[in-house]
């Protein structure tokens, strides 16, 4: 993995850890996501049974929210509060760069944690923008020349010629 990418991810993770440390008795988990909800890093301060599945569910979550919001006259997603039986989710957009989501214990801390999230938005925005530009540059754009079934057949025959199957 490219060292620039790794360094930026580490910085994103440090920010997530700092967010938890601001209110460790209230904030159970922090997820930092890109624009499509793909988790870049997450930090938990308790054993969350569903931390891993939440990780993979977030792209679907963001996509569903975007679908819902597009049908409502409220513009883009700035802030979402969702109360469940076992906790509360606070989701905040990091402008056009991504999202930050936290899971908290009680509604009593909603105001405080929202202030905490806002405090970190600028820093996370800068990091996500850097991350996106570095990762886009690092990955090869495959030249888009159309592949035909005959090309693939040639590859199969080539492989078979190199090795007795």
């Amino acid at each position, binding site marked *: *993995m*490219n060292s620039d*990418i790794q360094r930026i*991810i580490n910085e994103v*993770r440090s920010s997530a850890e700092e967010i938890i440390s601001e209110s460790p008795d209230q904030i159970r988990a922090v997820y930092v996501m*890109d624009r*499509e909800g*793909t*988790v*870049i*890093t997450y930090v938990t301060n308790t054993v969350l049974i569903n931390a*891993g*599945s939440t*990780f*993979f569910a977030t*792209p*679907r979550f963001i996509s569903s929210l975007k679908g819902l919001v597009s049908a409502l006259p409220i513009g883009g997603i700035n802030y979402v509060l969702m109360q469940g039986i076992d906790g509360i989710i606070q989701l905040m957009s990091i402008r056009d760069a991504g999202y930050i989501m936290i899971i908290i214990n009680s509604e009593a801390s909603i105001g405080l944690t929202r202030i905490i999230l806002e405090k970190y938005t600028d820093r996370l925005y800068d990091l996500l923008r850097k*991350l996106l530009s570095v*990762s*886009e*540059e*690092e*990955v*090869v*754009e*495959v*030249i*888009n*020349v*159309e*592949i*035909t*079934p005959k*090309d*693939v*057949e*040639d*590859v*199969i025959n*080539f*492989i*078979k010629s*190199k*090795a007795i*199957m």
Partner: protein
Amino acid sequence: MPVKTIKIVIAGPYGAGKTTFVKTLSEVLPIETDVPITKSVTEGKRTTTVAFDYGRMKVREDLVVHLFGVPGQERFSFMWKIIARGMHGYLFIIDSSSEEKVKEALGMYNFFRENFPSTPHIIAANKQDVPTAVDIPTIKNILKVPYEVKVMPLIATNRRSALFVLVSLLEEIRSYLLETTKYG
């Protein structure tokens, strides 16, 4: 003459056997690894080096196959989409030595299914030589594999097994191209 590139992605959780698979193939096939990919300057593209597991096989002067391994760790998941962009097919390798290991692959497999719903792929159940290996029907059930997707046994250290899986994936890609040509 423009060079055609077939892009194949080798996906799967950390420790599933992706690197071993490419390494085994490179023992039989003329796959170059650890070489920088460069974009042709004559086509107005800048030169870029890729820092991922990667192999390249030249089939004809105008046809190369690129194999990209995606990092299996969850923390690199945001890179999966970027690496997979423009791929023609992917091989999803899982560690099938126990049901727990197969279950660990579910999240990543769903991620690929959701982000690349129509891309041809097959699942390779690695470590089938382990006595506790999970059978193919059980793997299909755990991963909720669509009936049309093949799940194949794999021993990534075995050349014959690795080649068979690669050829099977290419056959899937070929069938897909034939179908899309027919109806496209």
